[in-house]
């Protein structure tokens, strides 16, 4: 099927089989930041924004995004690098495989929550798994980035 979408502020026409998920379509079209970590919508690695809201692209059928806005980390590089700098300074980047999805969730959280507490942050990010860091360094980075004491 042909779908028309805006990806990272560019209009695109994509061919996607009716049973293909957005994550596979995006990778097929070269948005290689999008990673797959599970097959069950459990890990958060494939997070992109759909109309500005974080979604698991492994659980969204491509045909359902016709006419909508997709943002991947390729589209928000400046902002992503600002946060990544905090993450890397904590040493909390580690293998990096979960980072694009994680960063997309962090940036969405920044837009959605004002003055979040530590508890709010942990709750918002619960769906983003990481096996390397034990989450503590990520939390330190977020708190510094958001200026949360």
């Amino acid at each position, binding site marked *: 099927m042909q779908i028309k979408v805006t990806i990272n502020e560019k209009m695109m026409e994509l061919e996607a089989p009716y049973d293909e998920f957005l994550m596979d379509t995006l990778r*097929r079209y070269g948005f290689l930041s999008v990673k797959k970590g599970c097959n069950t919508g459990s890990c958060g690695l494939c997070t992109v924004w759909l109309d500005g809201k974080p979604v698991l692209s492994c659980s969204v059928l491509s045909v359902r995004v016709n006419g909508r806005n997709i943002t991947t980390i390729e589209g928000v590089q400046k902002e992503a*690098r600002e946060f*990544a700098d905090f993450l890397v300074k904590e040493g909390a980047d580690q*293998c990096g495989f979960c980072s694009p999805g994680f960063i997309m969730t962090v940036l969405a959280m920044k837009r959605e929550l004002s003055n979040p507490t530590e508890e709010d942050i942990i709750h918002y990010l619960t769906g983003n798994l*990481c096996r*390397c860091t*034990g989450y503590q*360094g990520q939390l330190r980075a977020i708190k510094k980035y958001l200026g949360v004491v």
Partner: protein
Amino acid sequence: MRIVNQPISKIDGMDITTGKPVYTDDLAHGHELAVKILRSPYAFARIKAINLEKASRIPGVECILTYQDVPKTRFTMAGQSYPEPSPYDRLILDEYVRYVGDEVAIIAAVDEKAAEKAMKLIKVEYEILEPVLDFEKAIGHPSVVHPEGDVTVNMDIGMDKTKNIASSCKIEVGDVEAELKNSDVVVEGTYYTQAQAHAMMETYRALTYFDHNGRLTIVSSTQIPFHVRRIVARALQIPMGRVRVIKPRIGGGFGGKQTASVEVFPALVTLKTGKPAKIIYDRRETFACTTSRHAMRITVRLGADKEGNIKAIDMQALSDTGAYGEHAPTVFAVAGYKTLPLYGKARAVRYMGHAVYTNKMPAGALRGYGVTQGTFALESAINELAAKLQMDPAELREKNIIREGDAHPVLGETPEGKPVVLASSALDRCIKRGKELIGWGEKYPRKVVSDTKVRAVGMAITMQGSGIAGIDTASAVIKLNDDGFYTLLLGSTDMGTGSDTTMAQIAAEVLETTMDKIIVHAADTDISPYDTGSYASSTAYVTGNAVIKAAEDMKKKIIEAGAKLFGVDSEEIEFDGEFVRAINKHQSLSLDEMARRLISGEGKLQLVGTGTFGGDTSPPPFIAGFAEVEVDTETGKIDVIEYVAVVDCGTMINPNLVRIQVEGGLVQGIGMAMYEDVKYSERGKMQTDTFMQYKIPCRKDIGKITVDFEPSYEPTGPFGAKSVGEVVINTPSPAIAHAVYNAVGVNIRNLPITPEKVIMGIMEKK
């Protein structure tokens, strides 16, 4: 030190976090054949017939390979130095299938859809055999998991495959039985650890193609490129010189990628078809068709006098290696070698038993490599001994632990035949500091919070090694480029740990230069110097020492080359990292200028520094771990309130990266302790094969994590460093079990420590 011991950012950090296409699948060009595996639905069966007629007619199918199409030479997928201790007990595809998920056929097609369609149309006729599913009943079971006659071993590993024994081991010092008899107090307990999954975020994957020289190139998410080259060459029966292995960025390994679980499949497809091929395991295959931690049963007997002086330690172990023997003998042995020396005052120690074959997924290497299992058993028993002695468990440890300067025969033997001396340890300080941080004095053993909630603390200590003494080696090559910057060539495999960065720090420190002047390249078997790979807690210590040697060699060569250019003796040359000076001539040359002149017609000299290192000992890092938990006495629910770990890993090459290693390892350890349960169906199918069933900790599951350091100085380590990557996972299971005991008086000896087990224990007590 200017650069070593500094919290320098990972050199690849900004790019890997912001989505640059640098992992294996990102490097595929999109036209590789998709490789899929048809897997056995039975735990144990013999293939009687395979009918490919309908399947091969599916458009787009390139080839379907069965056991009749593979070389008949058995091999091991374990990534270990040759000659591997792991038995050569597998073929790429075999007539026998030995667990649910074992490979039956390899399907390669133009896309995944075609491959999957074909897979469904393959008709296999099986002779179903009685599987061995309970590892405690494996020895002497009527079914023999490996009935074939051509299994070979490189050394005596105590295999008796007619009894399903993959390997046997015995470590013994002194007379354990006599010491136990003479002990005032003896405790005995049997402990079980589960087959934990690595659950790295990037699943297993590899792509293969023939290059312009007709050589088989494998791009793989692996910790062991050099071992993969050798394993694939043997499995495919082609010369090693025809294989090249490239490791791009890796999305986590944890030991899983120390086994070459997937490379042979696309490699065989490329060999047969001449075409590029790619295999990507989904999460189910990663859980159920690769390797896990070895599940173990360890019975511990401890003997002590009334004052708490430990006289004897006896550990009788049984390890479940599953269908194949990857890492079976070594994981088994290490569980003893890296636990027995902890209590150096014991007069007699023994560790013995077998690793057995079963019809379950093979076990392999996983962070901790047996020590995690051994530590749960020994440390739980030590805590039970303290309870029986009515002694503070911290005090019991302080009384008995090995200390810096103590010799212990299980640590190894010197060339003169004497027991190796522990050259560095701050374990005593780690215990002291940990007690302060957790508030041991006020909190031990418990505080009743309400009618239904009790808070309590528990503890455990552990050690590991740093590389494999006398076996594993690493090399480093440093090249001076024509603008005065260096390329550091490594064969170690940064799987996210940041080892490329720490190795660059070491090189920059020795060469007195800045981080931006060191370009790191790793790893490509055609280019990189030999390194056994990043496993066995080896990279900081083994590769780190090789980098020091290479950098010193480079420095020496810069000075020699400077002497030649100035026409003076080397002794008259000074090099400060930026300038080469002839002391007496008052002449100087910047390094970049000198580098340009050296590679020009004038100098005709490419400077290359090299270094190779292999450890004579394997210096242990130490940790004292402390858990505070809250137990709900009505439901058995356990919350970790705080986990404190105080670490002695010698000098920290990069304090930030070390801290994250510790935090990440602790959380992986908490997962093993409390959440990560492995369940099989009655017929031997793994049921916990997705993140829905196999729960790794999320942000809400772990409580507060407090990490501190009490560094010793390891004289053989690079700048005094020891390893940190594995030791970090060992303490949570025994410390949390101890805290639960202190809270409600229930000893959980079977991991994971679930609310069900705790509440059952509470009810049994009533």
